[in-house]
């Protein structure tokens, strides 16, 4: 039966690359998320309150 496992070097590089990319990109995601939160808060703050219905007649 043929051995279809990748060479040890390839497996090792994938293992290292996986964590290296995660370490580099997770902070990017978190930073963008913090930016998104601030953006969300600002939009909520700027939103005009709904107009109040008038009581009674015209």
């Amino acid at each position, binding site marked *: 039966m043929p051995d279809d496992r990748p060479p040890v070097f390839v497996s090792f590089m994938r293992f290292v690359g996986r964590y290296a990319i995660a370490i580099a990109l997770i902070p990017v995601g978190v930073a963008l998320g913090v*930016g998104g939160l601030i953006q969300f808060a600002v939009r909520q703050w700027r939103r005009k309150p709904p107009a109040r219905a008038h009581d009674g007649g015209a």
Partner: protein
Amino acid sequence: METHSRPTHSYEQASVLFSGGTDSALAAVEMLKSCRKVTLLTFDPGYIFFVENSRVHADALILKYGADRVEHVIRPIKDIVGRILFADVKKDLKTYGFDMTALVCMGCRLSMHTATIIHNLEHGIPVMADGSIEKQSAIPEQRQAVIEANRKRYLDQYGILHVSPIYSERESDVKLFAEGVSPKENLKKQFIFFDTQATCIFGVPADVYARMFYKPLMGASTDIQSVDYCKERHPLMQGVIEAYFTSRGADLPALVARLRSMHGQSESTVDA
């Protein structure tokens, strides 16, 4: 109709949006229970790597069910992505700001839907399926509200039934291994580099943004935003589809009518 529904009756043929991961592969297995033939559609938007990995599960499905029941197509869609996801990046950033970190996946998925609709109309396939799951509903394109809004539109406008047959599934890797399709049992534990699917350069930030911020902290407003984003993209999708068939001299309304006529025809000859 519920998001996790399967087709209500058997069809001759369906297409499956196929990344090669365990969810889309299990979705294909489910569709093969009610359809005689399934076309696995893998799309290359131009910014993913190792797209050939999708062949692992595709080849396993072909081996198990036969080449007469399963076919695999890898299709480049860089041009479509350019006209849908990257149509007006400046305007998108102004409108959605940081939320584009997550919505980029939505735009990519809509580009894939456009290519699938074209394929289905061209080949007379009335059903499209994907491997969307509730567990990943932080990501806009796998939200129930988004899936249902798109499903209604695709059926009304193109006569294509869109189903997500494994929506409530939580362990597709274990199930796929048990079905004898997957080479390993715990493929869901892989990240960034996968044995059976491509790696997307937007993937990690999008995932972190969606899981940590977009869904849990911003709540239901993200559902509305995602559905609005889709509505905004629909005319662009329609434009791409019309341009494709016009350039080939094909009659789009006739192709839509052909697919519409296929719904409701129960095909009892399909093996379960």
